[in-house]
């Protein structure tokens, strides 16, 4: 699984044109799967419509980034069919394409567009499905990612996560002054949007389960405080204002509570905040550091980091009974758990000797697998389909985001054009 698969041939740059002043992310795939499926994406027929985005190219980039696919180069294609009836399967078989995507765009009412596309199985010479996706002219990337999601799911059996988003923090130093920004972008780094800018630190973004809000820590008052902010309206609400730490917010699966960290009682403890009543409940009671809570899907179990055993390790807490159990024993530093949707695989920050890597930890078997080989890797966040873990690492002295698959076969890097990028948070499914 760990063999490098044609690094050069798979290394590609998805240069995203943008008028944005912010540092957009540019993705570079550095390693792929050993046996990728070959998919040809015929350019989408625009039928005379003026559309700036190359939808077929966005789909190709999505599929390649997943590491599970290789795409047939456009220059090798003998024809650009846009519907199943125009396809000569023999041509595509000769090119080695196992699947073919064809599609066509048209306008419908109210200035909206409809992209009708089909996935064809070249080997079996049949149409797997046909789907129509509708949106506005500024939603062409959404249309493209939805095509990728459908194709990915049909071929792999796993729900695609190309239509999801990432939140992350950037820090830039400009003539000695810091500028911190909280951004949201598509999962491929495109369409970066600024949510908040501050001269004081911003930390720990956490998605509400409906994907419409973020909770995060901002020092804008001169002290750390937890805020929530709506993505569409930009409406903000300060949730905590206690002496000491106000950190590590984590939304409960039902969206009604936040787990968070306060040190108002003298040292960091995990609390639960009921968002409708503003009632705080203290969940841990220990003189050690307790921090970085994350919810399990039952809504009654929290995983968190504590150094109560001498080194930071992962613990499990039953919210109802407050029963606490240590889960990790291998390594001298295990922290910042992020749970995969299977409910048993944790991505975490792990240190065996002196370097910090991202590792996966199986809650059932207790097996720990190091996923990364760089140093100073932190802030793992698992995609909602469980295929990839995004994390922060260093390239030279700069913070960048990278991703690795939970089975170690695939990895890619998202360097920003400038500044430090850190603390990625992968959104839930947004549909």
């Amino acid at each position: 699984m760990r063999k490098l698969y044609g690094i050069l041939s798979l290394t590609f740059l998805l240069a995203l044109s943008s008028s944005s002043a912010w540092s957009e992310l540019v993705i570079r795939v550095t390693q792929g799967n050993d046996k990728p499926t070959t998919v040809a994406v015929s350019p989408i027929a625009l039928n005379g419509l003026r559309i700036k985005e190359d939808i077929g190219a966005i789909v190709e980039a999505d599929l390649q980034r997943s590491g599970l696919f290789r795409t047939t180069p456009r220059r090798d294609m003998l024809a650009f069919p846009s519907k199943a009836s125009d396809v000569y399967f023999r041509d595509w078989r000769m090119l080695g394409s196992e699947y073919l995507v064809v599609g066509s765009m048209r306008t419908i009412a109210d200035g909206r567009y409809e992209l009708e596309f089909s996935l064809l199985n070249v080997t079996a010479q049949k149409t797997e499905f046909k789907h129509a996706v509708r949106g506005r002219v500024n939603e062409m990337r959404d249309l493209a990612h939805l095509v990728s999601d459908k194709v990915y799911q049909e071929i792999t059996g796993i729900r695609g996560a190309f239509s999801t988003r990432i939140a992350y923090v950037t820090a830039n130093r400009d003539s000695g002054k810091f500028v911190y920004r909280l951004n949201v972008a598509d999962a491929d780094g495109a369409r970066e949007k600024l949510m908040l800018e501050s001269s004081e630190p911003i930390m720990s973004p956490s998605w509400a389960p409906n994907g419409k809000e973020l909770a995060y820590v901002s020092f804008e008052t001169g002290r750390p405080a937890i805020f929530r902010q709506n993505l569409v309206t930009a409406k903000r609400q300060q949730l905590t204002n206690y002496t000491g730490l106000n950190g590590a917010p984590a939304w409960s699966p039902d969206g009604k509570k936040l787990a968070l960290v306060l040190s108002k009682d003298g040292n960091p403890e995990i609390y639960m905040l009921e968002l409708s009543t503003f009632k705080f409940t203290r969940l841990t009671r220990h003189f050690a550091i307790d921090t970085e809570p994350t919810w399990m899907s039952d809504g009654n179990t929290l995983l968190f980091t504590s150094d109560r055993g001498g080194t930071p390790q992962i613990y499990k807490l039953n919210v109802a009974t407050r029963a606490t159990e240590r889960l990790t024993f291998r390594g001298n530093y295990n922290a910042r758990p992020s749970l995969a949707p299977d409910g048993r695989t944790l991505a975490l920050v792990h240190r065996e000797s002196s370097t910090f890597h991202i590792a996966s930890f199986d809650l059932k078997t207790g097996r720990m697998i190091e996923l990364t080989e760089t140093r100073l890797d932190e802030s793992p966040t698992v995609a909602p389909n469980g295929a990839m873990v995004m994390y922060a690492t260093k390239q030279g002295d700069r913070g960048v985001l990278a991703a690795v698959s939970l089975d170690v076969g695939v990895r890619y890097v998202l360097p920003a054009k400038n500044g430090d990028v850190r603390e990625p948070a992968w959104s839930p499914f947004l549909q």
Partner: protein
Amino acid sequence: MKTSFNKTGLATILFSMVLVGCSSAPVEETSTDIEDTSVQTGQVDTSGIDDSAMASSADTVFYFDFDKALLKPESRAALLEHAAALSSNPRSVRLEGHADERGTREYNMALGERRANAVKEFLVLQGVSGGLIEVISYGEERAASFGSNDSAWGLNRRVELK
């Protein structure tokens, strides 16, 4: 976003089945509408920030070992001087705790606070009123020295008295 079956596409299905030839089942036809999910920028409120300066001859930065919050012997002289000055001439001070970049960010927030509390406890033991001292941690968010090496990390594991 909502997904629905297209009931009008039956003719297309049958037509494409004839052309494709070897399909045994009708092709599934579905559709999706993209929802508007634009993102707006929020505004920070910085009215609460107080940039107070201080004048003192003694060292105001105290350093720590990795993952430790124990005061070093070399910090003692300067801290005693501060304690004496604050006891005879009380004023509000702020202790800002910091960590190096290694380890996770929220854990480092806790570590920075632990270090600042260690300095506070020392000052209180020397007679300074605890009510005058505010403790705040910046974790690894406000590095004093940039670079991923031992000397930069050593300069970043610190408490600053302000």
